[in-house]
């Protein structure tokens, strides 16, 4: 049924969709760019900083977007990135 939904669902706060926390181990990064390219939520982008290997590691644009799918962890050839679930007790 084609419905234009505009309201914030009444249960929006109850239904938990996990919030992710992105951890970068910058000096391990070799700059292949997989995590940036394949993040379904476009959480990452290339940063300007230069790591120990002389390349630009990714940086988090907007962590709130992270849906915790963990693909960055899976696709990273260098074990340089991983995500954990944010503790949202105090709200995120």
């Amino acid at each position: 049924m084609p419905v234009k939904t505009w309201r914030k669902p009444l249960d929006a706060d109850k239904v938990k969709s996990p919030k992710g926390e992105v951890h970068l181990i910058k000096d391990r990064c070799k700059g292949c760019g997989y995590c940036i390219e394949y993040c379904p939520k476009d959480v990452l982008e290339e940063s300007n900083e230069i790591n120990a290997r002389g390349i630009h590691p990714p940086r988090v644009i907007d962590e709130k977007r992270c849906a915790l799918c963990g693909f960055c962890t899976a696709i990273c050839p260098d074990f340089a990135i991983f995500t954990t679930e944010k503790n949202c007790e105090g709200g995120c």
Partner: protein
Amino acid sequence: MSENISQIPQKDELRIGVYVCHCGLNIAGTVDCKQVADLASTLPHVVLAKDNRYSCSDQGQELIKKDIREHKLNRVVVASCSPRLHEPTFRRACEEAGLNKYLFEMANIREHCSWVHLYEKEAATEKAKDLVRMAVAKAALLEPEEEMTVPITQKALVLGGGVAGIQAALDLADTGYKVYLVEKDPSIGGRMAQLDKTFPTMDCSICILAPKMSDVGRHPNIGLLTNSDVLEVKGYIGNFKVKVLKKPRYVTKDCSACNDCAIACPVTAPNEFDVGLSTRHAIYTPFAQAVPSTYIIDRDLCLNKENIIVCDKCIKACERKTIDFNMKPETLELDVGTIIVATGADVYDPAKLVNYGYTRYPNVITSLEFERLINAGGPSSGRLIRPSDMQIPDSVAFIQCVGSRSESGNLYCSNVCCMNTIKDSLLIKEHWPDTKIYVYYVDIRAFGKGFEDLYKRARKEGVLFVRGLPTEVVENKKNHDLWLVGENTLLREVYKTKVGMVILSIGIQPRQDSEVIQRLCTLSRTPDGFFMEAHPKLRPVDAPTGGVFLAGCAESPKDIKDSVTQASAAAARAGILMAKGKVTVEAITSKLIPDYCNGCQMCAKVCPFNAITVVPERRKVELIEAACSGCGTCSAECPFNAITMRHFTDAQLLAQIDAATELDADKKIVAFCCNWCAYAGADFAGVSRMQYPTNVRIIRTMCSGRVAPKFVERAFARGAAAVLVAGCHFGDCHYINANYQTQKRVERLWKKMERLGLDKNRLQLAWINASEGERLASKIKEIQSIVGSVNFEEIEKSKKMTERG
């Protein structure tokens, strides 16, 4: 009653009997039927002409039969109403008297004459005479035809899984026919599944629907295709070939609906089923009682796009390993004999009515949102809460006719809103008796069984009914309370009422995608946009296309009871066809005269049904009669007169043209109208008594595609002042796209007329559907003005049109 009877016949001579019907005063009130009968008796081959009160009555029919036998009539003409109404009646009579029914012809002197020229008795009578002349002229050339019978596939397709579709499918399946139920949503149930209670009985909607849904789910005769779209419908009555796209659910049917996957799914969106009042995940089931219960993945929302799986949370969560992102869409090809269209309706979007503040004020909700809120299984567990503060309001107002019966929305009455509001008001009273309830209305329409009682009950319970819709809803920004301002038209005073919540009683409107279904099943739609029935009174569930039937809100706004009734009716109608196992198709098909054919293949190019195949070695074409639907556009296209059309032969049509232009041609408009749209439109104009000039002579063809350039040229050559070619709108053509050829031909004719220095305005092309009587009437008025401007030279010039062309 007068009689003119001639001598005993010699064999083989044509013996035509003409009957001019009074139709009580319907015709006789305007047309001098006796004069017409007298004229008829003077026409060639007419051996008998009578006028009588009701030709369609039993006595009327008996008379015709008797005459056929006694006077050896071998052609019969009845001048009365539209052949679309009574041709079958008289044909049957002829057959019973041993006369081939294709030797019968009708002159439409009611819808096309008496009713549209109520105040021009003489002119109308002259026109009636012409119409009889034309009919007799054609009759003289009629030939007996053998009808072909085609087998009917004893399977049905039901489009739409709402309560109507469900009922139709179950009825047919229980009768023993195989049914394919195609639903585009993930579950069947439709609108009814969203409702809390049903009026007037106040019983729980899903409680009575769910059992039917599961019956469908497990019925051995029903093939349930949810999440599916119809791509293509080919073929004809009894022999439809339907392509259905079954979109993947990405979950196999081993799904136990345990919901573990949804809990694991990281992404969410508003649940359409709850009108966005609750949340669902990318993998979900729309509601608890969904059928099939198998979950589905919304790939637009899911993190996994195209060829990669980034997120496998659901896959991991699923114990039974039922998730398969590798599923592909399948296209199924179904052979069915009948189709029931039960595609339902949309609801009106009140955001358009800015003054009511929907989507601006949180506490203004729609009646559909109300259903979800008041529903115990709904997003608020049955508590009617204000979205602004989650509090139960102490006062609510219903606003009626939102999007109905008004220029700002739809013109028609949505039929269910009044009772639905009354039901809703009682539900509120039942849960929270102290709630103050106002209903702002135009009229309360409580016409159905048990409706009035419910209305009375509501009033007894203290629901306040105020006549006069508010002009505006204003919000108190602080506490989101709402003020309604308007005029109470009974008390003639302005009201200004404060309530905690406003419920907009929104109307029903045609599906956005109606055009698609319309095109697929070659249906027609009323100006309102709902699908049109073959006859509003006598064939209310048949679509104009043979083998297709209508049920539920797709045909017009209606409540559950009516939808179910109509569904059962549609199922019965489809059942009748399939029970017969075969159907005879009218012997109105193209006919090839091989000797004339030189294999140029132009006919094959224009045939919409691929009924013409080419035999290269013989440099000839071949005609597949079973596939021919009889539009006749091939015949119109053939440059060598190698194809003609049974019952609408060139000779017959030319004879009609000649007869129409026998007297004062230079004042006349010859109109070619297609049977399904333009001619029906003219009938509609008649039924609606729309008056228009008398000098038009309508010639019926099955399709405007049948109108060969030579017919138009003949009319002009005969000195006609103007010619109208009228057919269905593009997309409405009952022969898929034959009317595109019509346009091409008319354009060619226009060019030719320009070349010959003729006024091309004398040839008019119009697209008029069956409900556009008004359009036809005004078109004819328009042409009338042109007729006035056509002078003698112009006519003389055009008389040479054929020779020079």
